[in-house]
């Protein structure tokens, strides 16, 4: 019996349980009311229906989830006990290959066998699959019936079905909220574990402070020493994300926010604010393509024209400029919020003393809003250094330690993509290095966020 059929059958059973339990509760409660004992009725009939339906479905569903994990092992065991399995090779790898092929043929996802040994195993496999499939289905149905019957006998006019159902609802809400914690733990655990494996091959000091990055040479067998120095990557990330992008984004974002909040007419603000926010909604792959196709060649031609040596068509400047444009809305909306949070009385006081609007802004509003603006910039930096597609497409792969914006530099995210795509042998230092880089990126963005949020919060409290 197939999975979808069982699920459909269970759903049908659940529906029947709901309808019949609801009808029974309604009848019993009407009878109870007729005798004049109104206080003996507790839950609405629908809650009785849900109570019985849940007792029918939940135990069976839990059983099926466990069974789906246990059954393949039982099937393999019974196949190995078959006389046809005696001739299998001893070594585990070819053994599991043959078993996998036989399984694929038995469940119909593969037509014929490449290995004659697996052909002989198809019959036992199909039998075992069938046997355990039927066993699982029968057990699930028995559980559903048992659960439903147990719950059905509890339907009484005064049974507190609603309380029970609500308890389950609350439990599922709590479980849902745990998923965020599990995800965070999953990220930390997977990054730490793979990084730990990496650092057992490469010295962490060499990784954090080495200046030579050439994982290819390590993969080709020249040894892991001296190949995983990540400083050029860190520099490239800071150069593009924290320097060039911010030189573009801070003035443009800040001045846009000031103009739109302090000078622009309501109509202009109504139209320009969403327009600028569209910049944040454009997918990064589009920015990357734009940077690589339009901006980078133009910048290279410009660099050649003014006679700069080492101009590359994959320049740090192209990636940084486009990334800066992408960041403008973040800086702008953070600046907007912080300026709006400055008390109106400070603004009025300054204007009343005869200061012009620009003097009020530069000498009163911005100094007062500075912590918020700084926090916003830190958040923007954390977003910029974690950004991937723009740098993958527009920045280069050469790990240069240079301050020439027209030269090619590489970043942490570019290298993560580079190391993990293509050939995948999961035990080499080359692929594990990506997780170590990911760990560094995770820690840095986390710290930036914590500091930024703390700065913003402190400053808010000062004016509240």
């Amino acid at each position, binding site marked *: 019996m197939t999975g979808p059929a069982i699920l459909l059958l269970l759903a049908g059973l659940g529906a029947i349980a709901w309808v019949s339990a609801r009808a029974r509760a309604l009848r019993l409660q009407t009878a109870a009311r007729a005798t004049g004992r109104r206080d003996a009725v507790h839950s609405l009939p629908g809650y009785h229906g849900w109570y019985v339906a849940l007792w029918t479905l939940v135990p069976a569903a839990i059983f099926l989830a466990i069974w789906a994990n246990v059954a393949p092992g039982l099937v393999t065991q019974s196949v190995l006990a078959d006389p046809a399995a005696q001739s299998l090779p001893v070594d585990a790898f070819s053994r599991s290959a043959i078993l996998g092929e036989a399984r694929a043929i038995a469940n119909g996802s593969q037509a014929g066998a490449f290995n004659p040994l697996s052909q002989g195993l198809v019959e036992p496999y199909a039998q075992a699959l069938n046997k355990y499939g039927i066993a699982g289905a029968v057990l699930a149905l028995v559980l559903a019936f048992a659960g439903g019957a147990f719950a059905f006998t509890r339907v009484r006019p005064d049974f507190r079905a609603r309380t029970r159902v609500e308890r389950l609802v609350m439990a599922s809400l709590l479980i849902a909220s745990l998923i965020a914690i599990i995800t965070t733990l999953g990220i930390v655990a997977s990054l730490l574990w793979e990084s730990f494996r990496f650092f057992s091959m490469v010295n962490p000091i060499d990784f954090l402070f080495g200046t030579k990055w050439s994982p290819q040479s390590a993969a080709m067998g020249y040894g892991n020493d001296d190949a995983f120095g990540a400083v050029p990557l860190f520099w490239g990330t800071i150069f593009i994300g924290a320097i060039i992008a911010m030189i573009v984004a801070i003035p443009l974002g800040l001045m846009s926010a000031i*103009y739109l909040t302090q000078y622009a007419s309501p109509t202009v603000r109504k139209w320009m604010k969403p*327009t600028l926010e569209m910049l944040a909604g454009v*997918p990064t792959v589009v920015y990357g393509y734009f940077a690589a*196709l339009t901006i980078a060649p133009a910048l290279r031609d410009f660099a050649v024209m003014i006679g700069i040596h080492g101009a590359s068509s994959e320049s740090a400047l192209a990636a940084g400029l486009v990334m800066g444009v992408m960041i403008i809305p973040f800086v702008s909306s953070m600046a907007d919020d912080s300026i709006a949070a400055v008390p109106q009385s400070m603004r009025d006081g300054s204007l009343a003393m005869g200061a012009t609007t620009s003097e009020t802004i530069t000498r009163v509003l911005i100094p007062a809003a500075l912590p918020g603006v700084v926090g916003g910039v830190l958040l923007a930096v954390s977003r910029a250094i974690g950004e991937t597609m723009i740098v993958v497409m527009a920045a280069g792969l050469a790990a240069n330690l240079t301050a020439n914006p027209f030269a090619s530099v590489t970043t942490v995210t570019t290298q993560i993509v580079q190391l993990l795509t293509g050939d995948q042998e999961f035990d080499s230092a080359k692929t594990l290095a990506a997780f170590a880089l990911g760990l560094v990126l995770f820690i840095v963005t986390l710290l930036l966020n914590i500091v930024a949020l703390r700065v913003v919060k402190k400053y808010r409290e000062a004016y509240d």
Partner: protein
Amino acid sequence: MSTRNPTDWKSEAMRKRIAGRYAAERRFKFAGLFAVVLSASFLAFLLVTMMGNGLRGFTRTEIALKVDFPASPLLLDPKAITDEALANANLPMVTGTVAKTALGDKADALLSPTAWINIRDAIKADPTILSRTATISVPASTGLDLAAKSKGSPEMEAEVARLKQQGVLSTGFNFGFLTASDGTDPTQVGIWGAFKGSLLTMLVTLILSFPVGVATALYLEEYARKNWWTDIIEVSINNLAAVPSIIFGLLGLSIFLNLAHLPRSAALVGGMTLALMTMPVIVIAGRNAIKSVPPSIRDAALGIGASPVQVVFQHVLPLALPGILTGTIIGMARALGETAPLLMIGMRAFIATPPGGITDPATVLPVQIFLWSDEVSKGFVEKTSAAIIVLLAFLLAMNGLAIYLRNKFETRW
């Protein structure tokens, strides 16, 4: 004791000073305007560039090829047209020969290398054409296509002029771009495969992230007590919202693929990874929406005897739903444009058939854009931009829907 003299505002120095301050004011205001205009014009520049390149990607140059089947070296029995017979008929070679007679010696460079597929389909649709001369529209080569639409090499420009004189050249809307999948020949590729992959991935993301996100938001906003446990949940959600997307890709790679052995490149794993990314967005939007439902509603419901669960599910949730949906759509739009985490879980494979289900190898629109942008052939430039236009159109539609929902259903209490 010095006497205080009133400022002489009429004096030369004072006038100069005030003029200077007003000039500074004008300069400052102009700088602000300049920043806004510069940012907006960058957006306009980006969109115009994509439109300029991409609109051509929706059209295709075709050559009306006159095929004299009886005279061609094609050996096919009109009564027994099977897929196998067509596959054995060596159509690519026959097409080459036919094209040489019709278009001259340079025909190889004029026709798309996959032009024979159109001839095969024509024979399949109507086997009787084998006994006569038929005119079949076949796609032109990339070089000719570029020359016909915009700028190509001088030889191709000359060919375009010659073919135009013969009246066999036409440019029409390329329906294949919307119905085909990835390929090696830019004249034959389409976005349907990637689009279907995106739809399946988004479906998985929505099914996983929406219930969990709403449930978490309800729990935190309505039931959770203020204690260290709740603080941990809140901190993890806020952190997850700020974690770079590529880190989610690393998580998907090491947990979903290497630990749980789920299928590589599949919409299932892509959707699960994106769901983890989208969930915090839904939780944060959901909490704000729930927070904005006034307490009087809760008090009224509690007052007439509703249980806490009934208050939330029958009163608070329906009122907060427009806000939650707006946040969900915005989160889904972000997930739709996401590329980096999907590269990590292997969705960058070359996949020429649309996925049949969530466990089949698939690719998504942004990844398809990334893959095409790496192609060497010049014909892919306009295809990449055309795919970008499709993606942007969808994002715009989703955000427009979110704004519409917000304006239509948002209640100001």
